[in-house]
């Protein structure tokens, strides 16, 4: 059974000109106990998506269309007071940067107890303290240090404290926004393992948002690749990082060093993400895609389902080895970039 069911979600931000379409027509589900990864470059809408799900969009952000169903209830329709009951108790978050995610003027204990008392008013002090001690134990922190202030903790400890707080109420869904980006690689690994263990223990689902492909590979069952506010491709981790169909996924995969073929060239995707206040009418990635045709630039691609993948690309169903090997070759991307800049120069000279 799915914990979260998002369909055709549009999240916009008001700007001086047209609204910025940060999340545009996104649909997906998260199953019970499942870990879903969301990857994409900065500004692709992944953090906005998380904020919309938990209900903490900034004032200028709003859900324009679509639904966020949690446990069969559409959260976007609930009034604030009722929505608040779902926060933390059902959907909690591990914030982006451990450094600033805790209030500097209260102790860690006060902040965890605050969450408990807000949602379970009858809870006594002793019981709350027991939960704090138990959570500290779980994340590998000394319960004695619960009365420390955040600044007395190292970065890794703060992230552990954040995780302890996020899991204290045993929520059904945890949104982890770049849970380990601020940490060094060894700490990153420890923390990810610890999250996995606790999560299996309380059987919660998790949505991991990151631009680090290795984090997703390590923790997730399924991945969504987002580009320019839309889903580019979605599928099981092995497929997405095995033989994807979307040129963006293929490029992204080659943009990270591969441990088995360490001497292969890294690929760089030139250009910038589309302007979200005035998105292109065709495929959002067409501007930067070396395989793009006129159809790509004018017609929005529909979903193609094959091999367990959902791919938004016109050529997903006719992709062959030639197409894939060209998309997988850094030279193709470089040539396209050269051709485009030559064209730009020519236009300027005209």
């Amino acid at each position, binding site marked *: 059974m799915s914990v979260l069911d998002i369909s055709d979600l549009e999240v916009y931000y008001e700007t001086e000109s047209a609204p910025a379409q940060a999340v545009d027509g996104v649909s997906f589900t998260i199953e019970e106990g499942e870990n879903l990864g969301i990857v994409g470059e900065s500004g692709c809408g992944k953090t906005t998506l998380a904020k919309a799900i938990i209900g903490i969009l900034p004032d200028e952000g709003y859900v324009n269309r679509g639904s966020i169903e949690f446990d069969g209830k559409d959260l976007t329709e609930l009034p604030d007071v009722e929505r608040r009951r779902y926060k933390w*108790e059902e959907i909690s978050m591990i914030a982006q940067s451990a450094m600033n995610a805790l209030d500097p003027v209260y102790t860690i204990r006060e902040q965890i107890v605050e969450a408990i008392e807000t949602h379970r008013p009858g809870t006594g002090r002793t019981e709350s303290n027991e939960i704090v001690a138990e959570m500290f134990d779980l994340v590998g922190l000394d319960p004695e240090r619960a009365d420390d202030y955040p600044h007395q903790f190292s970065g890794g400890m703060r992230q552990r404290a954040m995780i302890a707080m996020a899991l204290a109420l045993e929520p059904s869904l945890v949104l982890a926004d770049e849970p380990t980006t601020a940490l060094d690689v060894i700490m990153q690994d420890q923390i990810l393992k610890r999250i996995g263990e606790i999560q299996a223990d309380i059987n919660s689902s998790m949505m991991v948002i990151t631009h680090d492909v290795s984090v997703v590979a390590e923790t997730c069952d399924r991945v969504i690749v987002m580009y320019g506010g839309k889903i580019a491709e979605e599928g099981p981790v092995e497929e997405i990082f095995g033989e994807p169909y979307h040129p963006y996924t293929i490029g992204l995969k080659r943009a990270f060093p591969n441990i088995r073929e360490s001497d292969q060239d890294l690929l760089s995707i030139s250009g910038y993400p589309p302007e979200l206040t005035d998105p292109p009418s065709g495929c959002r990635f067409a501007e930067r895609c070396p395989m793009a045709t006129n159809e790509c630039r004018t017609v929005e691609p529909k979903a193609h389902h094959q091999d367990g993948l959902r791919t938004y690309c016109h050529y997903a169903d006719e992709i062959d080895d030639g197409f894939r090997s060209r998309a997988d070759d850094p030279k193709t991307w470089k040539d396209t970039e050269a051709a485009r800049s030559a064209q730009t120069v020519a236009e300027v000279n005209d």
Partner: protein
Amino acid sequence: MSKASFVVRRLLQLGVTFWAVGTVLFFLFRLMPGDPTAFVVSAQMTPEARQQVIESYGLNEPLYIQYVRFLENALTLNFGQSFHTNQPVREVIWTYLPNTLVLMLSAFVVAYILGIVLGVLTGWYRGSRFEKTTVVTALTARSLPTFYVGLIVLWLFGAGLGVIPMSGMGTAGQSYDSFWARIFTLDFLHHLVAPAAVLAFYYMGYPLLIMRSSMMEVLSQDFIDVCRAKGLSERAIMFKHAARNALLPIITAAAIALGYAVGGSVLIETVFGWPGLGREMVNAVLRRDFPVAQGTFMVLAATIIILNFIADLLYGYLDPRVTYD
């Protein structure tokens, strides 16, 4: 470093600061053009009589002897006698300082409570019409000279409507057993309300604007997002988390501003005929009344120095990140 040794060290620094202020004051007044005895000795006096007066104030001694004597006396809080009235300086300060403090403190407390609350609200409701109106009002209040606003208030409510007294701290002919007996009378409050309101209106802008920008900075931090995700009520986020963090810069600002307020009360005291220390200080300088001027200036310096010290201690209490080293 422990908190105790921090306090001790700061207290020692305090002593050095007082000495430095006293020394600067002493020499500055002696460098000032004009003869301090001009007001006490008249042209008709014989040179002998004149010399006698000068000697009686110790003004014939070499400067360094005068300086050492000044320091010795200052240690016992004895600032000498007024050249003008022969009244001991301590008594002069004792008479006028409480009047200034009552006026300043009541204006200050009102201004800071209002300013902080409005600052929290304007920071929270950024971009609303409420915010824009409040900020414009605060800036206007901050830009208008207090003596001008004071005069308008007097003209409108005093001379025009007759609802406030035109001058002074009490109705003539009343006498009271003590200072405390006096300030809790309706008559006193009636006299206090106009100058205090004018001052509060002026002071309010500063904490309001600081609090507002501090709030906006705090609200952009990640932990506010976490608070919202935790499902806390809007009021808990606004006051318990955002305002609590935003309050820190106000502490230092308030300490310095209050110090200046006690010194900068001259204009408002003059307009409203309030018998305060500021007015007395200006008169003392104009009359070259060194002892009174030195004494009043020392009191003002002490106010600023001590308030800063309190601010430091308070900061350490409010912000757990402060370390004492």
